[in-house]
C-alpha cells in the first residue's frame, strides 16, 4: 500500500530534515543568521550595560569616590594589578607558585570528596529507589542526620578523623552525599510506571529492569543533583578550609583577612567563582554526552 511499494518509506513525510541535506541553508549560514538577528535585539547590549554598571559602581565606590566603608575594600584596579603582577605585593598572583598550590589543594579535596560522594550517593539512591525495604531501613536515619548543618560537624569530624585533610574531605563528601542521594532517589521515583510495565511485559528479568530502565531513567535527575552537589561541595569545602585547614582557597581567604592583606581576599573569591563555574560546566557537559537522547529531542531542549 503505502509502505513497501515505493522505495521511500513513510518516514520522509514529516520527518526531521537534516540541515544542508537536501538543498536547504547550510549550518554556518543558519548560525550567522541567528547571530545577526541576536545583535538586532536589545538583549546583548543590555547585558553589556548591566555588566558595565556593576563594574563601574564597584570601581567608583571603592576607588573612585572612596565612599565611607567602601574605601576599606580593595577596588578592581588594585585587585587586577595585584592578580596579574609578576611580583605581587602580598605574595599571591597568577605568577606565584603559592597561588596554584592553594588552587590545587582545594581542587584535589573537591575531586576526592565529590567522587566518593557520587559513587556512594548514586548507589545508595538507586538502591533506595529500587527496593522499598532498603528505603524503609535507610531513609529515616538519613532524614534525621540531614538537618544537621555540615559545618556543625566540624568539631566531631576533627575528633573522628586524624590529620588535617581527612576531616575536610569528610565534610565535603557528606554535603555532596546528601544532595546526590536525594536527587537520585527522586530520579528513580519519578520514572513513569509505564516504562517498568513495558519492560516487564517484554520479558525482562529484575536486573534488566535495573540497568535498562532505572539507571537511564534516573540519569537526568542524577545529573541535576550532581550540579547542585558540586556547588554544595564547594560551599562546604570553603567553610571547612576556613575553620580548619592548611592551604586551599578558603584558607587563603581567611588568612588574608587575618593578616590584613585584603586584596588577596578578592583574588581568592574571584578564583573560587571561576573554578566553581568551570566544574559545574564540566558536569553539565558530561551529562550532555551521556544523555544524548535528551539533547536530540525534536526542536532542541
Amino acid at each position, binding site marked *: 500500500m503505502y509502505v513497501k511499494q515505493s522505495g521511500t518509506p513513510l518516514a520522509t513525510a514529516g520527518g526531521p530534515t537534516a540541515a544542508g541535506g537536501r538543498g536547504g541553508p547550510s549550518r554556518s549560514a543558519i548560525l550567522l543568521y541567528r547571530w545577526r538577528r541576536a545583535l538586532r535585539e*536589545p*538583549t546583548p547590549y*543590555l*547585558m553589556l*550595560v*548591566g*555588566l558595565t*554598571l*556593576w563594574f563601574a559602581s564597584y570601581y567608583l565606590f571603592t576607588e573612585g569616590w572612596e565612599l565611607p*566603608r*567602601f574605601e*576599606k*575594600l580593595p577596588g578592581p584596579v588594585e585587585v587586577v594589578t595585584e592578580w596579574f603582577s609578576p611580583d605581587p605585593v602580598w605574595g599571591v598572583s597568577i605568577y606565584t607558585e603559592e597561588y596554584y598550590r592553594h588552587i590545587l589543594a582545594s581542587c584535589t579535596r573537591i575531586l576526592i570528596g565529590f567522587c566518593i560522594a557520587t559513587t556512594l550517593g548514586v548507589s545508595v539512591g538507586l538502591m533506595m529507589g529500587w527496593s*522499598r*525495604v532498603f528505603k*524503609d*531501613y*535507610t*531513609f*529515616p*536515619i538519613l532524614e*534525621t542526620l540531614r*538537618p*544537621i*548543618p*555540615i*559545618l*556543625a*560537624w*566540624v*568539631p*566531631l569530624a*576533627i*575528633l*573522628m*578523623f586524624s590529620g588535617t585533610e581527612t576531616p575536610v574531605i569528610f565534610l565535603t563528601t557528606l554535603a555532596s552525599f546528601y544532595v546526590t542521594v536525594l536527587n537520585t532517589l527522586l530520579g528513580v521515583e519519578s520514572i513513569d510506571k509505564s516504562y517498568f510495565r513495558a519492560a516487564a511485559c517484554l520479558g525482562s528479568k529484575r536486573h534488566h529492569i535495573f540497568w535498562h530502565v532505572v539507571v537511564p531513567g534516573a540519569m537526568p535527575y542524577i545529573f541535576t543533583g550532581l550540579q547542585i552537589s558540586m*556547588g554544595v561541595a*564547594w*560551599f562546604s569545602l*570553603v*567553610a571547612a578550609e576556613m*575553620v580548619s585547614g592548611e592551604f586551599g*582557597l*578558603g584558607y587563603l*581567604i*581567611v588568612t*588574608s*583577612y587575618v593578616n590584613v592583606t*585584603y586584596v588577596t*581576599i*578578592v583574588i*581568592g*573569591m*574571584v578564583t*573560587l*567563582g*571561576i573554578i*566553581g*563555574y568551570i566544574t*559545574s560546566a564540566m558536569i553539565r557537559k558530561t551529562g550532555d554526552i551521556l544523555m544524548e537522547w535528551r539533547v536530540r529531542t525534536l526542536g532542541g531542549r
Partner: protein
Amino acid sequence: MSAPSDTSGSVPFLGINWAKHRKMLFGKSTQRGVLAMIAFLLLWEVGSRWYDWFGVRVPIIGLIPAPTAVVESWGDLIDSAGYWLSWYQSTLRVFTGFIAAMIFGIPFGLAMAVNRYFRDIFFPPFEILRPIPPLAWVPASLIFWPTQEMSIAFVTFLGAFYTIVINVLGGARSIDVRYLRAARSMGASQWHLFSRIILPGTLPSIFTGAAVGMGITWEVVVAAEMISGGGRQEGGGLGFFIWNSYVGGSLEQIVVGMISIGIAGYVSSSIIRKMGDLFMPWRQLF
C-alpha cells in the same frame, strides 16, 4: 470465589480515615524505620563505650561521645541560660537574614521574570557572582560592615537570596503561557495578570525556594558563627556554642549542639511547608 483484596471497607468515623492513618503508624515501613534507628543508636553506643569496657579504641566511632552521655549532658544544659540564649541568637540571625532575603529576593526574581530588559541588565552580574560561596564573603563582609552582627546577617542574606531568586525565576517562567493568554482574552489588565496569575503561579516555587533557602541559611549562620567567633563570650549562637564546647573539651555538648541545630532547622523548614499548604490550598488536593 477467590479471596478478595483488602476489603476493610472502613467508613470514615469523625471524618477521619482511620484505616489510612493506622496503616501509616503501625505499618511495615514504620517498623523497619524504627528498627533501623534503634540499630543505629546501639551501634553508636557500643562503639563509643568500647574503650571503657574493653580498653580498645574503635576507629571513628570510638572517638565520639556516647548517646547516653549526650542525653545526660543535655539534661544539664536545659537548666543553663546560656544554652537557650544561644538558641535565641541563632534563630534571630536566621530569621533576619531569611526574611531580608525574601523581601529582596522575591521582587527581584519576579522583576527579572516579568520584564525582559530588567533581566538582561541584572542577570549577568547576578550569575557571575553566584558561584562564589557565601562564606567566601565573610571576610569582605567583616571589613565592610561596622558591626559583626551586620556582617553575619549580610552573609546569611546572600546565601538565601541566590536560592530564592533562582527558584522564583524558574517558577515564574514555567507558568503555562496559556493561562496568561486566557486571562488576556478575558480582558485582564497588566496588573491583574501579575497579581492573579503570575504571583499565585509562582507561589509553589517561592515556597520551594524558601524551604531550600532556609536550610542554606542555617548552614551559613552556623558557619559564620564558628568563623567569626559569634560576638559575645556567652551565648554567641549555637554555632559558637559547638565550637566553644570543642575548644573547652566538653565533647558531649558538641553533639548536643549539633542535634539542637538539626531540630531547629527541621522545625523551621516544617513551618515553611505548613505555611505553603496554607497559602496554596489547591495543592493539597493532589
